[in-house]
């Protein structure tokens, strides 16, 4: 975060516990860094049944994975067991900064078929990253196996803060998560060029579902067109005779007609038209002149004269 020398490390803010994490140095930057993680019991406006066993984390490190959090709580903070972790947003696109609702159900790879599912669910394109990263300062909700575990985790965190116990981020995750750095981008490069076969399969799956859906929809629409509803009306729906290609033609025709109409009552047909045209021209001239004058004045101001 922002580089500022904090004279005294705060241990809690509001009801958040501030947990310092030691981020070990790297060969390229061989110095330890401290990262502050904020924790509190989750308290959403609309609590659910799971709320008591949830812990809300703020400012999760960007490289957080659920393996990281599992090992943090299990190995260094009393051994609480985590059921699941939900991160803020999924991958947030560039330029989109507003917080996005977390994707609760993470899609599992390989589980791609399913009858009747929406085409968005099937035929997904292959993942191109081996591991997700999170926006700086992001949040996460950790769901523990039960309420006592959640309480234990928070208690342990508070104790660690008080005792000054050093907690190291990312301890014991080596080998369990894909590495960052150059190899991450190499892996990305590999993943974004999927095999011909896998891609073909995914697209085929998508296309099949899509075609089925389209057919079903066309069928419904055709039925709607043909059958009056209970009030005896026939719904007007898309499809049928006016397909998109013909819509364009209709629009063109309309424009042409309009033009023809304009031509019929030509520009100088009536005297008043002539007069108005002249007036418009004069006004345009004055307008242009005024604008030019303003611009010159602005220029003069800019020159400081």
């Amino acid at each position, binding site marked *: 975060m922002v580089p500022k020398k904090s004279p005294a490390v705060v241990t809690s803010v509001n009801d958040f516990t501030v947990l310092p994490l030691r981020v070990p140095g790297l060969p390229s930057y061989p110095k330890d860094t401290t990262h502050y993680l904020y924790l509190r019991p989750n308290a959403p406006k609309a609590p659910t049944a799971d709320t008591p066993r949830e812990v809300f984390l703020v400012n999760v490190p960007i490289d957080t994975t659920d393996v990281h959090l599992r090992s943090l709580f299990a190995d260094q903070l009393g051994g609480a067991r985590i059921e699941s972790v939900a991160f803020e947003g999924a991958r947030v696109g560039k330029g989109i900064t507003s917080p996005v609702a977390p994707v609760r159900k993470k899609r599992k790879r390989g589980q791609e078929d399913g009858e009747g599912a929406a085409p968005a669910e099937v035929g997904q394109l292959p993942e191109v990253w081996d591991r997700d990263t999170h926006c700086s300062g992001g949040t996460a909700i950790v769901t523990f196996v039960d309420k006592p575990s959640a309480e234990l985790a928070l208690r342990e965190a508070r104790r660690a803060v008080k005792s000054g116990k050093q907690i190291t981020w990312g301890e014991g995750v080596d080998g369990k998560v894909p590495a960052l750095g150059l*190899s991450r981008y190499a892996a990305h490069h590999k993943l*974004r060029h999927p095999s011909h076969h896998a891609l073909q399969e995914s697209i085929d799956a998508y296309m099949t579902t899509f075609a089925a859906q389209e057919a079903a929809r066309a069928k419904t629409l055709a039925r709607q067109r043909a059958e009056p509803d209970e009030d005896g009306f026939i719904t007007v729906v898309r499809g049928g005779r006016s397909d*998109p290609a013909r819509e364009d033609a209709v629009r063109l025709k309309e424009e042409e007609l309009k033009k023809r109409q304009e031509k019929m009552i030509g520009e100088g047909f009536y005297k008043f038209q002539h007069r108005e045209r002249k007036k418009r021209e004069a006004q345009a001239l004055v307008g242009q*002149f005024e604008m*030019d004058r303003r611009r010159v004045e602005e220029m003069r101001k800019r020159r400081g004269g």
Partner: protein
Amino acid sequence: MAPSNAKRRKLEHVSSGEDDDDSFAGFSGSEEDSSESAQPSVNAESVGQDFAQGLGMDDGGIDENPAEEPESTVHLEQAVARASREEQAIVNGAAKTAQPKQMPMANKISYSRSYESGPSKSGIFKLQMDDMLERVRPRQGKREAAAEAALHRLKQTIEQIAPRPAQSVEDAERALLKEKIVIPFPDPRPSKDVLYKLEYAKPANITVVGSHVLKVTSAVRRLLQIDMVVQMPSHLLQSKDYLNYRFFYKRAYYLACVAAALSGAHGDEYSVSYSSMHDNVLLPVIQVRPTGKTSSVADKPAKAPAWQIDIALSAADDVFSAEKLGMSKNCVRKNDEQVKAHDSPTPLYNSSLRTCMLMNAYLVLQHKAASSCAAYRDACLMGSLWLESKRLGSSISRGGFGNFEWGVIVALLLRGGGPNGKALLGPGYSSYQLFKATLQLLALQDLRKKPLVVGEAKSFTESSEWPVVWDAERSHNILYKMTDWSYQALQSTAKRTLAALGDQHFDAFDSTFTTPVSSRLLDHDCLIELAHAALAKSATTKRERSSPLLSDLYAVLRRGLGDRVDEVDLHVPSTPDWNIGVARPPPSTGSVTVGLRVDPEHAHRLVDHGPSADNKAEAAAFRAFWGDKAKLRRFRDGSILESLVWATEEAGQSVVEQVCRYLLGKHFGARVEGSARFVGDECIPLLWKANGIAPFQPLMEAYKQLETDIRGLEALPLSIRQIMSADAQLRFASIEAPSITHGIKQAAPAAVTLQFEGSSRWPDDLVAVQRTKLAFLLKLGELMNDNVEAVQSRMGLENQGEDVSNQGFLDITYDNGAAFRLRIHHEREQGMLERQMKLKELDPKTKQTSALALASYKRDFVKGSAHTQAIAQLATRFPGFTGTVRLIKKWFASHLLSNHIPDEIMELCVARSFTQPDPWSVPSSTQNGFLRTLAWLAKWNWREEPLIVDMSGSGELKDVGYQAIGTRFEAWRKLDPALNRVVLFAASHVDHDGTTWTDGQPSKVVAGRMTALAGAAMQAVEAQSIDLDPASLFVSPLEDYDFVLHLSAAAFGSRKKSKETGFKNLKVQNTADTSLVGFQPAEDFLTELQTLYGAAIVFFCGGAERKVIAGLWSPLTAPRAWKVNLRVF
């Protein structure tokens, strides 16, 4: 507004009211000229219009090939004028019947008309001009008062000088030396044994002449310069004094006497020194300046003097016969033994003498012009501003064409110069018309071949090799100080200004009047610096001219370089003023700078063909000129020619430099050659493989191959409509030229788009369209792999998670190394996205993704390919273009801005320097184009000005287009006045949107930094000029950033350092491996950093040019608010 206009117009009326009769004659004359459009209502502006038409006709007179203003536009303007006059009557009538309040409105209309139908179509130009004239008109101020007081005192002192008796030269000199005054004799000084005596007597009269008294100097000048003329009494001169410098010796003595008196009387309040009038050694003058001691502000001694009085001596205009001082006469006789016929004419000497005799005559001429033509003074003011901004002036070192020459030529043209001795200009012309017509004369008539003669040319018969404007009445050549090269420079400057003024779409005001043409580095492609002293010692010559040596130098270089250069220009330092107690400093000090404007077509030719060996006389001359370098060679077509062979440029010296050095050595000796410093394309070594578009050819050929290969595939389900390129590498514009030799794979595949013929079977759903495109690509890849040899293809995915954007591409890699990235362009996507954005029930997020998808669709598929074509055309049209683009990109990258400023914007900036080169000519070398683009970047006010470039070269961007772009720009600025989204607005003839490349980036901070960096670069160029090391412009310190990440070379896939590559752990060592095509980890890393930390940090990256990523904490986030409670889950 209205009152000031009314006032000005009233002024015009008043001035025309007090005109004498002949100006009224002029009025009626021009009325008759345009009698076909005569209307009973003659008001001020209709007169103006008639004059405009009159000028149009006169244009034809001056203009030998009237391409400037074709016939039809004149007719059109007449029609407009007629219509507008009717309109005027209507509006006026309406105004009268309605309410008197509307009168100002009518006034405005008439005012806007008055400029609209004039030769300058743009109203803003006229407004700016009026505004400027208002500001620069001379006014009576403090310094004027001080200077005038000084004038009076000086005059009194001079009148009271006691006469000195006639004495011999030696005695006179000794007498003055006692008073510590040296007589500023011209070179050669008088010999000791001359018989005539030097004498001082009370001057015949003392007058003030020149621009100050005529009120034609601009008031914003730093130095107020006043010319005072003391007329020597005629009885001191004898009728033979015009010969052999005698007049000049007497004049020098007289001047020394005046100087003695002045320094005696005013030595403590004014500084008195000698100077050469207009660098003419024959005409020393006295310069009087305030010393600053007596000024009220004593604590600022370093303040530059506010004014300066030049005291020149004149002679009565009838002391010598004008015929004897004609241009072809010789007045410097050699010794008696020599035959008279050998004496060559001495025009400079003669004209200098005539100048002394005609000082008052020209004052009278200009004064008459000013009183007969209301706009004369303004025209002179405009001329003076124009000359000032182009660094032209009366002194020989600045070309010999200055305010005086301008003013006199305009005055002369008001009296004659046209066909049949009629006046070329009418007294009723507006100042702009006078200005433009005079420029036209300078630009279009070659005054060397076809001298302009004003008045009855009795004594003037022959044409000469020098430019001549012959004033027959006063028998004087106005341009006598001009040289061949300075005349050429003046002519080309005038041509460029005319072209700029003729361009309807761009505001030429600034470049014409206010922007000073800065450093010579920008002006010329090559500069050669020679030590003047070495040159002076080297050779002798017989020609009498301002600086005969320079003429020789010019002649030799001009002849030797031939068509390799368009222009050769020489610059000598101006002679400084010197103390009255010391001898004149030697004339040849400092250095001579030769500026070359290279013709890129011919400059690099290695073999020159001379005359055929059969042609004995010519061949001998050729050999005499080139010496040993000339070799007789037999060419393939059987001809045997004298020829010259130059070394290839890879050896280090460009051909132009070799030619110059050889010629300097041959004709001026080794010392001169040794002293020469050559500044040419110093930037070339900064680029790898910089010779034009050649390094890109292999890729272009591969692209053609790709096109044929794809079109050759028969089993494709749809037929192909077109294949377009959309990549910097395919428009000759990438920093590194793609090297695809030896099977090394291109690191960055070149983007290509493929469009199929329309079909109704495409799905009606955006996501499905993207998947269908993938399916097509898969099929295409399969077919390519099966049917085409030596090619590999593989699919790639992009825009993960944004499923309405393009989802994938096909990388096609040829075995020779060329790599392409193929995407499919489906034309209905745009309509579908637009329709989706119009849906009301859409949530903001989907709307935003659709908007992003639409923007990227337009960018990648529509604008990208059009832009690529346009730029590629420019690159083939202008030889220097490619190098300039690459250099500018390198500059941006070196300053870590290339991740903010899109490539296309950089290309457009460069395209601008080539398509709107004003005030220079089209850059013909890389360095020149680069520096000029930087100069423009430094002064581009992106907040107020859109960048509009018509790259077509044939005016494809019509008025409507300009208007549309202008409106869009205004709308954006209104919509987003804080410039949060669109900072740079750049449109071209293929992209009227203006925000295609700059929506969202760069930010204001970055654009500001760009301007500041370019400004700093320009300062360095100004300050160091010829000593500039271009490489220093590419150095950017990293201290400004909060932190810097140094990336290892492996992150850029740098193939030059493939031995130490970091891919060992990936086991992908082999550079021939296609799987590495398109692998750019540094870019991916930067993108990820931006996604993760973009809200708090601004990252700067220079790509492979500079292997660092620098970061700045955003000032907005530094005092970061506590956000926890805001982030409610």
